[in-house]
């Protein structure tokens, strides 16, 4: 239960951090480390180099802003889950973010873990990737060629695999604001509070448009458009577009039942709050 040896750099600037990653295809970026360090300790990952970005100032900002003509909230790469969860700006601009963050592990983990780190870790059982996908947000990424944005739809490729190149660093995530009159909700079922969810569902309802995003159902965060479906048929309509997996935690049949229950519950919670 000890990590394999690795080289370590703690750059003071983003440019130095990007330079450190160049030519190191097996390097990893260390931010909060709440997912990475267990992987290292269990030797499921053995990077040649860790580039610790915790010494770079300014990356912890949380700001309300406009990007690509859309209002929203920008969360820097070193903003801890706890800071994002406690931010009145985030709660006001996009309440789905704190709704989902309250389910991310336990408070102690949220004190160190970062929201952007969770997004690039690309775990389909995690809350924040599906939130970014459902909201149509994006990631700002810095690499040798400069900065680019990756839309959430293009971000998740497979289990624990994102579209970031090995020489790029996620600098910030952008969550679009909740439109006036729209509503959001989040529900999940876990064996114990703070555990990974067996299934989770996030909903975005805007007029006639109903979209629900699922975590722990497929191997990537999955959003289903349920616009125009009668409330009583929501669960079955969602299942037509999903293929729940079996694993050690739950069978596909049980996950299907959770999809039925949670889809209806989360959409109802949004309508009730409206």
């Amino acid at each position: 239960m000890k990590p394999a040896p690795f080289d370590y750099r703690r750059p003071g600037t983003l440019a130095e951090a990007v330079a450190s990653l160049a030519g190191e295809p097996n390097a990893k970026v260390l931010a909060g480390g709440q997912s990475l360090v267990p992987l290292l300790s269990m030797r499921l990952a053995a990077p040649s180099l860790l580039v610790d970005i915790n010494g770079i100032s300014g990356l912890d900002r949380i700001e309300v802003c406009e990007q690509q003509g859309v209002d929203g909230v920008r969360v820097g790469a070193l903003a801890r889950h706890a800071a994002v969860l406690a931010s009145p700006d985030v709660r006001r601009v996009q309440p789905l973010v704190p709704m989902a963050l309250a389910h991310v592990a336990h408070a102690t983990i949220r004190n160190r873990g970062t929201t952007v780190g969770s997004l690039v870790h690309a775990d389909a059982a995690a809350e924040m990737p599906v939130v970014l996908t459902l909201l149509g947000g994006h990631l700002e990424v810095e690499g040798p060629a400069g900065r680019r944005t990756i839309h959430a739809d293009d971000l998740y490729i497979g289990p624990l695999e994102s579209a970031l190149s090995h020489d790029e660093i996620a600098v910030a995530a952008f969550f679009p604001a909740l439109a006036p009159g729209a509503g959001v909700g989040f529900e999940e079922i876990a064996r114990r509070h703070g555990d990974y969810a067996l299934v989770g569902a996030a909903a975005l309802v805007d007029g006639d448009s109903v979209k629900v995003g699922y975590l722990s159902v497929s191997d990537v965060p999955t959003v289903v458009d349920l616009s125009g479906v009668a409330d009583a048929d929501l669960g079955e309509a969602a299942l037509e577009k999903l293929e729940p997996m079996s694993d050690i935690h739950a069978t596909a049949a049980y996950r299907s039942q959770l999809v039925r229950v949670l889809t209806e519950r989360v959409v109802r919670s949004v309508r009730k709050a409206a």
Partner: protein
Amino acid sequence: MSEELHDVRLTVNGATHDIRVPARRLLSDALRHDLKLTGTHVGCEHGVCGACTILVDGEPMRACLMFAVSAVDHEITTVEGLADEDGTLSPVQQAFAECHGLQCGFCTPGFLTTITAGLEANPCPTHDEAREMIAGNLCRCTGYQNIVKAVERAAVLRQAQEPA
């Protein structure tokens, strides 16, 4: 090829310590092996059990999920730093003693640090909030009822200490 070592200055319980460690040295191991502060216990070593919880700038964090090299620039408090210098127990420690909040004691350091910070943030927790406060810590003796009582007792003791 020998492993590269890093000079790391840690500030723990108000004292500075200079150590020379490989980058992969977990903070929990640096505290226990390099600083001989064995009050911080290591249970699962992957962030689940909470036994190694310490305070980093006053916030509870898992020592097993941080590297010592990454803990520079922070004020660390371990269970050894909770009591007064003359040995007087802190309100949380006193409450654990009074409420039989520990059995084997292995998980206790993580509970004490977590609750110390928890009561700092929320001095008068409801019963549900007291349970939620310790939800990230495991006690294999399953002594949770008395630990929750200790949280509530510690809140009372803290308030009695507050200057009027």
